[in-house]
């Protein structure tokens, strides 16, 4: 109490501090039998933990994984056994330690008062003296040449950090605004690469499609493959849908972008680029499952709900001599997530 008054000198509270309640011992503090029992409990828990750890090692080797895994209750036996045994082993250590702390470790309440944060005046003076002595002896104030060259050297160290920023580049150039679609490229179904005829499509049909070049081969080798294929696919994936031609209200200049109610749109959401093909055939709405952006495909892919800021780019299409769908050109605007410099051909 005396110490407390020294540290926080203030006027006495109108209501006296009742202080801590008197310490009462636990049964384990006063009863030897209870103490022994608690000791056994803790040791048992630690022992159980050891057993579970050993069981973990056993189940690692016992249960089959791979082609024909062992099964417990419809779950993979190996997963269940490894997870349960390791989890229980850790849990038992935790429970044992808590039991130890609660029953056996000393539990007398201790009061620990906060101290002022600043150093004592004496320490401060000492530190200042050391600093000024250092300044004096090094002569940094008297030798501006050294001081300035040191400052220059320190400033120059900023350059590597700036130079390293170059790794963020190179600038994307035209990559964001163009895809692999070109005039006359066939629109083919994803996975099997079969070309699409408009008369094979029915009202309400959806086809997840890709540029035909992804499935073309030259001398038995795919024309595009590997990383390049993935990069191109990420931008060029499209969906082809067929609606009642009367339902479609194309923007000026887009009247001939579809064939008999068949339209082709980018499959990449303009919000953050999720692939979207959640197509409601009766409402013509295309919904992005990531953030619920909704596009009206009968109305030029306009955003009607959600966080997407720009309409879905449409791929101009026509049919070739054999009646298969082909692209009239590349997309007329950038596909995928929006960015500042992006073209936007939405009429005002």
């Amino acid at each position: 109490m005396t110490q407390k008054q020294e540290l926080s000198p203030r006027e006495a509270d109108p209501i006296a501090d009742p202080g801590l309640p008197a310490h009462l011992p636990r049964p384990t503090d006063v009863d030897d039998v209870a103490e022994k029992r608690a000791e056994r409990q803790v040791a048992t828990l630690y022992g159980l933990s050891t057993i579970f750890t050993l069981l973990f090692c056993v189940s690692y080797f016992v249960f089959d994984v791979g082609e024909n895994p062992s099964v417990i209750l419809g779950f993979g036996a190996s997963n269940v056994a490894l997870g349960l045994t390791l989890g229980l082993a850790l849990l038992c250590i935790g429970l044992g330690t808590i039991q130890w702390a609660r029953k056996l470790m000393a539990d007398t309440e201790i009061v620990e008062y906060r101290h002022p944060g600043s150093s004592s005046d004496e320490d401060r003076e000492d530190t200042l003296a050391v600093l000024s002595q250092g300044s004096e002896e090094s002569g940094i104030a008297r030798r501006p040449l050294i001081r300035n060259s040191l400052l220059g050297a320190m400033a120059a160290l900023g350059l590597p950090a700036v130079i390293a920023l170059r790794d963020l580049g190179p600038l994307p150039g035209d990559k964001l605004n163009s895809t692999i679609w070109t005039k006359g490229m066939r629109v083919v179904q994803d996975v099997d690469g079969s070309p699409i005829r408009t008369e094979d499509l029915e009202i309400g049909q959806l086809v997840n499609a890709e540029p035909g070049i992804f499935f073309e081969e030259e001398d038995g080798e795919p024309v595009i493959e590997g990383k390049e294929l993935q990069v191109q696919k990420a931008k060029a994936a499209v969906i082809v849908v067929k609606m009642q031609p009367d339902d479609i209200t194309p923007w000026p200049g887009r009247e001939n972008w579809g064939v008999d109610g068949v339209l082709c749109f980018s499959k990449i959401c303009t919000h953050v680029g999720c692939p979207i093909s959640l197509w409601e055939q009766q409402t013509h709405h295309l919904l992005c499952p990531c953030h619920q952006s909704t596009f009206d495909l009968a109305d030029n892919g306009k955003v009607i709900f959600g966080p997407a800021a720009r309409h879905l780019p449409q791929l101009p299409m026509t049919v070739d001599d054999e009646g298969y769908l082909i692209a009239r050109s590349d997309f007329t605007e950038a596909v995928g997530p929006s960015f500042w410099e992006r073209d936007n051909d939405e009429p005002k």
Partner: protein
Amino acid sequence: MRFTAKFTRRVSGRLSTKRRSRLAAPLVLVLGLLATGGIFAAINPATAETQTADEDLVAKGRALFLVGCASCHGKNGEGITTVKGGQYGPPLVGVGAAAVTFQVGTGRMPLAQPGTQAERKPPVYDDEETEALSAYVASLGPGPAVPDPSEYDVSDATTEDIVRGGEFFRTNCTACHNFAGNGGALPRGRYAPSLKGVSERDMYLAMLTGPQQMPVFSDEVLTPEDKRQIIAYLKKTEETPNYGGFTLGSLGPVTEGLFAWLIGMGTLVGAAVWIAANSTRSKKKGGAA
């Protein structure tokens, strides 16, 4: 032989004298038609019976339709338009037998009450009645027919089929039906139903006809073989045990987050409270304390 030749010559000679008659041309035409029809009937006697059976089926279907369906779809399946211009029941001309078999066979039709979406429920009509209804609606206009069971039989699907089916499934179906085929939400209270426990036939019919908001996947684009592979993949995933533990509905972050925050965090908070709770105290004066 000689007699036949002689007979033929004599008959044709007598006939040729009549060939300029005014009745000759119509007579030949009638005889020709009779002969064609007679020969066809003689060669293919089953047709006549099948025709009658079909007609019976259509008539039976029409009778059922007038009782169970016509109040919304119109007496001739022409659909009923609401005052606001919407559809009370859409026209059924040209939807084909496949659509009827799907809608009635899965109990979606007849509707229990109008709502956001027709729900799957125990079918009201038995197989025979469904067939009759399908036959009647198919007679209204051409549409996709019910596929032969061999088209969706996946009992002999190879691993290659299943893998390819998985590719088609992930490309075309997962956006709505969830990566595990567990179904998912659509705007305005609609939903894509779970594909677990759906029969092979119904999966095929749904892809073929595009019920409600589901897009159509016509046989010309997504071929019957492709469809069969998708069904094979789904059936395979259905019977595959879940090696990874609890799926929590395979709904992703929604159920997983709920579980982690409510059960996981709840248990931890409870444990922390328990650890810090007062333990039993003794009034006895003792040694250690």
